[in-house]
């Protein structure tokens, strides 16, 4: 009989584990395809930061897989010199789940957009988070449909004018962080295309997390929704509009670092550190590891609150069982219990009789 290719031998078949990890540069991750995003698109920055980050992750290029759906962001895999699938609309998490279930040796990234993951692919997004499949989801949120030429998306704000909403959108938008947190994603973060250093840090941290890492990346669609995040990227305004989250640190923001977040019962309040009797000790301290997500749930609401800064950074980071680990454990246990796989014995299982 042919030698059985178990998951491990499939990996070994393909891999030369004994050779040292090559010293990669960003260039090694560049494919030979011409990048076809609009000039000035925020996607360029994300692509560049990804190529800069990958050499630092300690992962072989051949073990890296990018899986995307449909949309501008989903062209991403074509531009990476790794393995990749540009699949169908919204389904990247499902494909990634099947790949990780069978090939836990691979490093899987999912690249998606707000329409791809929150509209047509909403079901797969919540279920990959629920199962905690070890993959990193990069959701490029530009609050618009780009590739289909300018329809409002499930994250477009009410009132947004677009080709499909000439009088303004009347759809209440999704808050992507709330979706991920509600689906119990074990790692939830947010970053911005133009904040290159922060983006690189978050890419690295999301990769290093075991389990589903959900990263919302604010991304500027310069053709159909230009400057949607301007207040958070413009150097004059951004510090008053962004709250950089650091685990164990009080929540301070503002150009003069003179504003902070305090909890008043269950409600967060923006307070001024200049006010009489207010000190750093009054401020909410960030805790990524809050198991039940009370703090992360509160942080996710900031975007819906008037006068609040937008939190960026790691909102939540907890450990919980990874689906494909447990699947493998069940298989290993059954293999150990059942002994050598004997096909003939399987075929003859149950009530058998013989005709002479």
């Amino acid at each position, binding site marked *: 009989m042919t030698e059985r290719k178990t998951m491990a031998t499939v990996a070994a078949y*393909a891999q030369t584990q004994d050779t040292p990890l090559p010293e990669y540069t960003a260039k090694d991750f560049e494919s030979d395809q011409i990048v076809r995003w609009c000039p000035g698109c925020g996607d360029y920055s994300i692509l560049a930061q990804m190529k800069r980050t990958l050499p630092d992750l300690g992962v072989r290029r051949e073990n890296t897989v990018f899986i995307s759906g449909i949309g501008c962001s989903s062209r991403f895999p074509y531009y*990476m010199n790794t393995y990749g699938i540009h*699949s169908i609309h919204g389904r990247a998490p499902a494909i990634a789940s*099947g790949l990780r279930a069978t090939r836990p040796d691979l490093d899987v990234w999912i690249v998606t957009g707000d329409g791809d993951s929150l509209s047509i692919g909403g079901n797969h997004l919540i279920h990959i988070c629920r199962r905690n499949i070890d993959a990193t989801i990069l959701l490029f949120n530009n609050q618009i449909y780009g590739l289909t030429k300018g329809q409002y998306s499930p994250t477009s704000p009410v009132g947004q004018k677009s080709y499909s909403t000439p009088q303004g959108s009347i759809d209440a938008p999704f808050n992507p962080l709330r979706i991920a947190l509600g689906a119990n994603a074990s790692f939830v973060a947010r970053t911005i295309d133009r904040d290159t250093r922060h983006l690189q840090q978050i890419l690295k941290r999301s990769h290093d997390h075991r389990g589903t890492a959900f990263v919302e990346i604010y991304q500027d669609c310069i053709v159909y929704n230009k400057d949607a995040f301007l207040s958070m990227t413009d150097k004059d305004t951004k510090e008053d509009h962004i709250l950089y989250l650091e685990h164990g640190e009080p929540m301070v923001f503002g150009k003069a670092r003179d504003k902070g977040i305090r909890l008043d019962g269950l409600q967060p309040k923006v307070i001024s550190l200049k006010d009489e009797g207010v000190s750093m000790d009054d401020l909410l301290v960030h805790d990524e590891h809050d198991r039940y997500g009370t703090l992360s749930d509160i942080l996710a609401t900031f975007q819906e609150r008037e006068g609040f800064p937008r939190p960026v950074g790691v909102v939540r980071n907890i450990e919980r069982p990874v689906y494909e680990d447990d699947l493998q454990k069940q298989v290993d246990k059954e293999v150990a219990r059942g002994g050598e796989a004997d096909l003939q014995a399987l075929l003859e299982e149950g*009530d058998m009789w013989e*005709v002479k």
Partner: protein
Amino acid sequence: MAKQKEVLRDVTIRFADDSGSGMQISGDQFTKTTALLGNDISTMPDFPAEIRAPAGTLAGISSFQIHFSSTDIHTPGDEVDVLVAMNPAALKVSLPLVRKNGILIINTSQFQAKNLKLADYASNPLEDKSLDGYQVFKFDLEQQTADALRDFTELTKREIERTKNMYALGLIFWLFNRPLEHTIGWITSYFDRPGRDKYIEPNVTALKAGYIFGDVSELFATSYEVKPAPLAPGKYRNLHGNTGICLGLIAASQKSGLPLFYAGYPITPASTILHELASYKRFGVKTFQAEDEIAAICAALGGAYGGALAVTASSGPGIALKQEGISLAASVELPLIICNIQRGGPSTGLPTKTEQSDLYQAIVGRHGETPLPVISTSRPSDCFDVAYEAARIATKYMTPVILLSDGYVGSGSEPWLIPNAAELVPIDVHYHTDPEGFEPFSRNADTLARPWAVPGTPGLEHRIGGLEKEDGSGNVSYDSDNHEKMTQYRAEKIERIALEIPPTEIFGDEEGGDLLIVGWGSTYGAIRTAVERQRELGKSVSRIHLRWLNPLPSDLGDVMKRFKKVLVPELNSGQLRTFLRAKYLVDAIGYNKIQGLPFRAQELEEQILELI
């Protein structure tokens, strides 16, 4: 009292009661014992879509039919010889299936005003002479069961009542001279768990009491015997169609060395494939219950991309949801097996009834020009071979394969001659590993298959996707000539699978004759029986049965030309017939039934006689 023993060639028994009452278990146990005695058998469960519709109603009747014989048989029986009816609704639903002068074993305890009304009986059929044309054996089965179990004082009335299916089974065992040992062994192991072991003794007691009742009661003067059938030598087991698919897939996994990955979403009548594969993890099988049908096909595709033997299964509505994913698999040319265990449609249709109405969907479904190989099962005992062949072709040609089965084959069972695993045709699969000159969409000269280059292989990093690919390099290409070329490659690749199909076997007049019946799928048994009977009567009727529906066998056109008339019986409005007429310009005649029921051999015989 000495009782008579009569020898019969074949018998069809139908057990009928409220669903959830254990009639499927009684039928299953009778089948197992009968199989072990060496009879040929064919079974068919028939149950409502609802789990437990209200007791006593016509909608809630669950039945199990078994045909067993001392000769070679191919169907679960046209007509019922023995009906076990546990209440008025069971009688009402099943009586039309019982032959004239057939045996009715009736539990009288349920024939009171309330249940007669639920079953829509204006008067009590046990009293109004409407059953005069049958041999009626009526007695209070529930009271007799309760009497037999009167010493089990710790059991509730309800618990005692639940053993009535064993009492009925015991009686039928006596009626057909079957031993009780096998079922006693099953009862003992089934209830062998703390908290449930108290049910072992009552069930065994009920089983024995039913048997003894048959033996001593003056009600029954005759018992029957059906001698073993002359099956070909070898080891056998009773096999359900869906089990055959599971075993075929595991065998393909073992022989190819590819790990088996199954992603599915629960749907009747395909769910048992998910259940069974989930229990075979010791063969390295991984199963994934996806969030929906779309996720199931996509997860399977992810598994195939990673190098697994990837499979999904569903039924009509679920397959419709998967079509976009199947098209992606066809476009990126990855091996996949998509099983469609057909049921009555459209939409939710008749979830527990059988139909062959997804042939169109299988052959011309999807979008764009996306021909795919379509293979079909014809009976429970060929499901193993069909699944194994689907896996061999999928990996050899790097293509999704649609496997068409249906509820009748999937849930039915018959003896299966167990193959020798060592003698199965090899499935040689090689992942591509050589970076030298690697192109993801280069093609094997014979099969036109592209290389299977799995992630993790150094130097073969490449991207695939749904956008049209450039011939060879696989890079995105919008070139018009390239698109036409790639479309033709994908179609030609599927056409070449015809080279794998053996010459069409004609059962009957190989040189030609009056009538050829072209069948496919689960109509096999009824067609075979009808043709054999009519040939015995000297009619020039022959038959062929197609396993591959796309591509069709290369010699099919030539074979059909040898006959004056071609008849295509299908449990749809004529889907295969349409393809045959279009492709071969043959004036094929249809015989079609869309009632959620299999053909009876007799109705096909009538059709044959009409045409000859």
